[in-house]
């Protein structure tokens, strides 16, 4: 999940600065760059169990899921297909994380 979000952030950055791709420097490109970074950050917090409170872990997991889905939807409307695939992988990671470690959602 963290790796996929990290890759997504790199892709989103390339989309942001690569003039001529139709979305460069647009609000949408900035948005997905920011959201990808936040997903990576949230994923890292979950993966490293840095969030001690059970409630906070659950909240973080939900926020990360919203970030993945939202970034994926935004990527779809930006026609940023690599970013969309990365978010798909991140979603799989999130599911594995929840399945393997149900504590965040306890």
């Amino acid at each position: 999940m963290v790796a996929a979000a990290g890759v997504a952030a790199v892709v989103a950055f390339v989309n942001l600065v690569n003039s001529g791709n139709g979305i460069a420097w647009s609000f949408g490109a900035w948005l997905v760059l920011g959201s990808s970074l936040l997903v990576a950050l949230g994923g890292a917090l979950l993966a490293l169990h840095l969030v001690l409170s059970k409630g906070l872990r659950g909240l973080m997991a939900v926020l990360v899921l919203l970030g993945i889905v939202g970034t994926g939807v935004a990527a779809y409307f930006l026609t940023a297909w690599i970013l969309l695939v990365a978010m798909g992988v991140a979603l799989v990671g999130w599911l594995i994380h929840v399945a393997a470690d149900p504590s965040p959602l306890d």
Partner: protein
Amino acid sequence: MKIARTAATSAALTLIFTLATPALAQQDSNGGQSPQAPQYGVTDEPGDVSEEGASTTGSEAAPGSQDSGSQSGASQTGEEQDAAGQGSEAGQDDEASQEAGSDQQSPGLTSQPTQGGGSVERPVGSDAAATQGDEANTAEARQPQKPDAWMQDPNSWATFNGDLMAQKYSPVDQITPDNVENLEKVWEYHTGDVSDGSGDIPTTVWSATPLFVNDTLYIGTPFYRIIALEPDTGKEKWSFNPDARLEALTQPAMKNRGVAYWQAENPQEGEACQKIVYIGTMDAKLYGVDADTGKPCETFGQNGMVDVNQWNTVNDKWPLSLLQAPTIYHDTIFLGWAGKDWTDSAAPPGTVFALDAKSGELKWMFHALPNEVISRTGTANVWASMSLDPERGLLYIPISSPSPNYYGGDRKEELPLATSVTALDTDTGEVVWSRQLIHHDIWDYDTVAPPTLVDIQKDGQTVPALVQTSKQGFIYVLNRETGEPIYPIEERPVPASDVPGEEASPTQPFVDKPAPVIGDDWPGVSPLADAVSFGECSRRAEGYRWEGRFTPPSLEGTIAYPPTTGGSQWGGGAVDPTTGIYVVNSNSVVQIYTLIPRDEFEQKSQDGETSGYYAQGDVAYGFKLETFLNWAGMPCWNGPYGTIAAYDLKTGERLWNEPFGQVQKYGFYMPESWGSVTIGGPVITKSGLIFIGASMDSRVRALDLKTGEVLWKGLVDAPAVSLPAVYTYKGRQYVTFVVGGNTILLPKVSDQVVTFALPE
């Protein structure tokens, strides 16, 4: 995903129509206007020029004899009300014109009334004056003309519309539906003439068609430079800079729709200006430069420049902006102009100029409005491209609506040439026939596109046809020799005005075949926009006046569908002359027209609420224009917002009609089924392809002419709001797009010229 997509789509659309549609409304009327644009006062340059012109030409006016009245093909049959009205009105206006004197007449020129209340001025003793006459003004009496040979090369793209007949058709067939997917960018060039409006120079709106002729690609820029490029590499050959005024004198933006080209019948080797490229400017200057060197032609006007504003002598509140590339035929330049409407009641009355291509001298000047009304109205000008039948010598002009555009209580005369398509004799400027498309226009339904001329096979006969698209969404198919409808045009009753002082026409011309580009009823309230606004859209819709097409503007607000931004715009359509298949793109937009009593309007002005409010001079009502949006800026009507359709002109049947393009905002693309508002037009090739930019998603596309399916699309720097050029050079077919962008579609401007071809 579907819900998310819908929600995101709605959110992204929120501001699009807030910004785009009102701006589009400003843009296309008479070429656009802006309440913020500096007023071009009579004491400024145009006035000086006008006076100077008057003092230097200084001869006594000599009104000519009255024309023989109605020769309209339509009035000959007496079948059409408008034509009949025109016939009688023409006679009245001719008479009235003589009684009224010569308000529009310039010294040194003779004035001759022509049909429909119009008139023609010519220099005393000119050839045109000598050849004028009633007998020559009939289809039977007209001598066949010869097209200019240099314009007949099938490999070239020598005019704004590809050819004089505005077919926008290329007979080349190297790129086909089967191989178009392999199309690749060959080169791109950046002119440097671009502004996003953040600095001193207004934003640029660049809609030039590149011309390929004389083995060179000629480009006009929104800073009014001419650039000559090598067609296969994009390498610059030369450029010409007139150092034009870069000010929004009549338009809210720096605009240009390209250049025109002329060459002598037998160019003399080594002699300058045997081939000339022309460009007009915002402040009414027409430049002519040598097509091989880019140097100004000393023999053209004064050192290569004709100041067209010298003939702007009536209601000269602003200059006659020369933004549209002129039309050229038989050593003559035909020139219309763009101005600024919605702000004035009396404005410069519409004129078309015929100038000598070599010297720039005036041959004739056509006036569309009769003298007796010009103290109360104006415009009815020709700001779009024109078309020309080179074998018949007829010039077809799309005439816009008169000012003030949304209230006609002070101009109740019929004004038969206003909002019409009119055929002029290229030699004399006289009206050969005219067909009014809107009576007493109070919707700003300017005739905006050049009519497409094509011979069609119908009922076993070859019919010389003319196809006129319109803002009102009708497609008029006429016999271009007579103006008679090929498919029926029916006068039908329309709603009366309920505004004190206004008298809307009791009938308007309707066309059922070919099917209008938009539906008869407005698209209805969008459930999504209505839900987001908690029923605001529905409540407002119920409060507005809507009684079908041609519901007049009202005090409570009228649903205008199509409005001034709707239907088909200046790009017009394209036709395959071998099959009679005609293609046109169109917009589906809903706006609200509200007239505001002068007292209230002044109060609003004092409150500073000027956005969307237009003075219309000193008539009884100001005007408020708004796009039908909810509080969130979402369109309150159902899509699609833009489509492209194909028709078989032989039968009048519509073959297909598809949403075209994609809306883009903040980088997000909306569903293809929603389509996009478009600016620009299509081009057809013999191989069965349609090339078109026009959409707001910064794509240029190739479509299958048979189905409308998108076969290829390429990403460019901004919306390509122009017509592409298709040509062959050294055996290779190229497609060149000018990519200028238009802030009314997207806040994205560009100076890109990009050319595509198949791999070598």
